[in-house]
């Protein structure tokens, strides 16, 4: 029975003739155009009103939305390497999302333009700063730019390779394609892990070149992958409303996507807790400085907001099976998580922008007599800090994220309209269509 080459997979037509295989000609074109125009308008507006601050706002949005595309690439490769059967139809959506990576490379241009502002701590270092000088072998502009090219070359090549092979399988129905992709996914994931880690080091961690954390690449990935699930759930739900993917992505698949989103809410918390707790505990000034910056200027309120909004609230909310199997509640969870993902990116990036006024230190609330008083003091401090945050925040800090989000929606729709909605002849398509949770 070595006849895999002679056998072809049954097609969607045979398995489930009622499922719409492709977007109707011209349909969704308005939505696609609308998303792109809205996105471009928001980014343009941010650029026009932001001044030098714009580059930091843009980086917030960019790292947030890039993470969604990278999550899609990761999801696709994991589906292949694990020979997963349940997620075949979701995988096509992920392939369409990661198809936006070439556009993301183009959208890196504003960061390159704002390079001197963003990375001025190491581009124009204090001449007496021997620490930064010691890192010049890594943190110099030429090597930095070379690395940008390398990262995007890896990501675009992998996204192109996996998407094209999957689309070809729609035509030829050759099961050997699935075997080949599962083999390539293994070295692909290795390259992915290294490139995403160093991209996170380069584009976020090096904003403050003094600070370092070995887990940082993992923390960025954890949040990004969670955001990918949130984005995918919303895209699939929206396409479902328009009459597509019905019967292909069912409540069973949403349930699984919800579980994975929940899992990465927890994993994000795990990595961030590990980072924060260990740095807090050892209390070494070269490490705590980074968090000290994030206790000033109102950022303490955002830290608190992340603890609740990125962990406690979604943890409690998404725990229930019913919430994950209900379209409305699952979408609410996904939207909430995308919003806190934006706050997370702000928390990582903006405190180094230095545009927040350094108010007088608010620490040392004094002796707290009891729990009720502690809560009261905590709420008072949060309200005060959040006021400071609102005073310093620019609308573009959200505008760029939302703008790039809509650009990604437009780019995804562009791909969705040109490809089949599900892998028509994937050998495990039947499994995906009949999939049920226990």
């Amino acid at each position, binding site marked *: 029975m*070595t006849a895999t080459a002679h056998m072809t997979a049954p097609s969607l037509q045979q398995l489930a003739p009622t499922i719409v295989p492709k977007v109707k000609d011209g349909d969704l074109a308005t939505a696609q155009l609308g998303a792109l125009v809205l996105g471009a308008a928001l980014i343009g507006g941010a650029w026009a009103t932001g001044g030098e601050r714009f580059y930091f706002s843009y980086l917030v949005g960019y790292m947030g939305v890039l993470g969604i595309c990278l999550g899609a690439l990761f999801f696709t490769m994991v589906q292949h390497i694990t020979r997963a059967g349940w997620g075949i139809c979701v995988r096509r959506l992920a392939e369409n999302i990661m198809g936006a990576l070439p556009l993301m490379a183009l959208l890196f241009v504003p960061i390159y333009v704002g390079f001197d502002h963003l990375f001025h701590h190491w581009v124009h270092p204090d001449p007496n700063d021997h620490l930064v000088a010691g890192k010049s072998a890594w943190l110099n502009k030429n090597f930095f730019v070379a690395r940008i090219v390398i990262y995007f070359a890896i990501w675009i090549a992998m996204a192109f390779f996996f998407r094209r092979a999957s689309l070809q399988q729609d035509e030829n129905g050759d099961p050997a394609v699935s075997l080949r992709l599962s083999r390539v996914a293994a070295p692909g994931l290795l390259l992915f892990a290294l490139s995403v880690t160093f991209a996170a080091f380069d584009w976020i961690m090096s904003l403050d070149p003094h600070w370092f954390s070995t887990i940082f690449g993992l923390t960025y990935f954890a949040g990004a992958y969670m955001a990918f699930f949130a984005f995918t759930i919303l895209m699939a739900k929206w396409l479902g409303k328009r009459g597509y993917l019905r019967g292909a992505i069912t409540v069973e698949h949403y349930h699984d996507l919800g579980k994975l989103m929940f899992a990465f809410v927890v994993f994000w918390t795990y990595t961030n807790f590990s980072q924060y707790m260990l740095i807090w505990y050892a209390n070494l000034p070269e490490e705590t400085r980074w968090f000290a910056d994030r206790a000033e200027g109102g950022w303490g309120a955002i830290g608190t907001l992340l603890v609740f909004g990125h962990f406690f609230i979604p943890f409690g909310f998404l725990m229930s099976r019913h919430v994950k199997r209900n379209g409305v509640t699952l979408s609410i969870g996904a939207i909430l998580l995308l919003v806190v993902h934006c706050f997370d990116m702000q928390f990582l990036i903006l405190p180094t922008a230095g545009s927040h006024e350094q108010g007088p230190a608010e620490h040392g609330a004094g002796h707290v007599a009891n729990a009720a008083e502690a809560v009261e003091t905590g709420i008072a401090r949060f309200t005060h800090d959040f006021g400071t945050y609102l005073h310093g925040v620019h609308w573009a800090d959200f505008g760029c994220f939302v703008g790039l989000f809509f650009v990604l929606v437009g780019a995804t729709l562009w791909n969705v309209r040109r490809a089949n909605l599900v892998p028509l002849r994937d050998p495990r398509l039947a499994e995906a269509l009949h999939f049920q949770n226990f």
Partner: protein
Amino acid sequence: MTAILVVDEPENPLRRAALVEGKNDFASVTNIIAGVAEKRTPKGWYLMFGCAIALLLNLGAMIGYLVFNGIGVWGNNIPVGWGWPIVNFVFWIGIGHAGTLISAILFLFRQKWRTSINRASEAMTIFAVMAAGIFPAIHVGRIWVIYWVFPLPNQMSLWPNFKSPLLWDVFAVSTYFTISALFWFVGLIPDLATFRDRAMKAGRTVAAKAYGVFAFGWHGSNRHWIHYEKAYLILAALSTPLVLSVHSIVSFDFAVSLLPGWHTTIFPPYFVAGAIFSGFGMVITLMVPARQWLGLHELITLNHLDNIAKILLLTGTMVGYAYGMEFFIAWYSGVEYEQFCFINRATGPYWWAYWIMVTCNVVSPQFFWIRSIRRNPMALFVISIFVNIGMWFERFVITVSSLNRDFMPSSWGYFSPTLIDVLTYVGSFGLFFTFFLLFCRFLPILAISEVKGVMPEANPHHGGHHGASNGGHH
């Protein structure tokens, strides 16, 4: 190896490979697994059990000697205040991670192949955690007041330090042990009932009574199964965070300190990856011979070994990623102590330990890129031994090489273990193997009911017409 009964087919994405090979049905699966415990005890078992008991007695002697003389009998001394005991503790607790990963996380991921290895791995987990627990307990010196590690109200108003990760260890490890043991036991109940019924039929009344006590009156009714499956799912969900939390907390023992080489933020996930790596290494070390000697080829197939090898490759590479990140950030940080620590690890007095660690943990699993090696039980066994060695050395490198060169060169020193250190460590294998051999002899070493659940006969659509490629519902 001889007597490989299964055909090594190339993979076909159009259908799922059978998890149970050969011409087996429900009855033959029961016969194979129950047969292991019902047959006459093989001579080889007595031999191995004798060795294990001898080592266990040696462990007892070493602990007795330690309690009478104090921990000065070990090599621990300033600057290396934490020597082999902590290394052995982390080594064993790491091994105890595969069982729960297989039973909980692979269960939630619907990895049905786990059914033929989960039982023995869970048993291995429990025995490894027992071996692990000994070392910190005897390290306290005055073992007769070991209960002080628990926050018990007392007339002296003395409390353990809640800020200490060593106390968190007490909670983490004891929780882990409890949940793992419960999970293992709950899974055993239907199989113990099978053993009870077979013993009864064969007229072995004592055995039937003994199995019967632990089978809790199970008779496989619908209601029993509904409760059983609910309990199993809940225990799986409870165990999942424990897989991550226990070794994360063990890593905190090191990482909350100020010490270069210990204090680094990647430690928690790095330790978890290493624990799973070492646990799966030990699963291979135990299951390859068991599969061979007990004739389990049709239940633990080459596909199973292939999957475990892939997990070893994945986690070994993750550990390599962590080594790489530590080195890169040590340089990038610009902190001279960090830089010194890592250069010292690779080129200092313990360079040999460092390179044993890297070779065994990062290089040796890379052979698993090759399919024929993943499917060669002998090769797997050999590499798994390297993994076991490498993971012990990893803990040795972390513990000793960070301590032996203090911030002040005047207090540098070279650590050497004493004979007591070595014999205590060897003795812990006696404890582990004594229990494991008893388990192999008297209990169902594969989960009979779960293996049946992944056979095609268990599918309600079996034999009917249900789609062109009805390869099972994954």
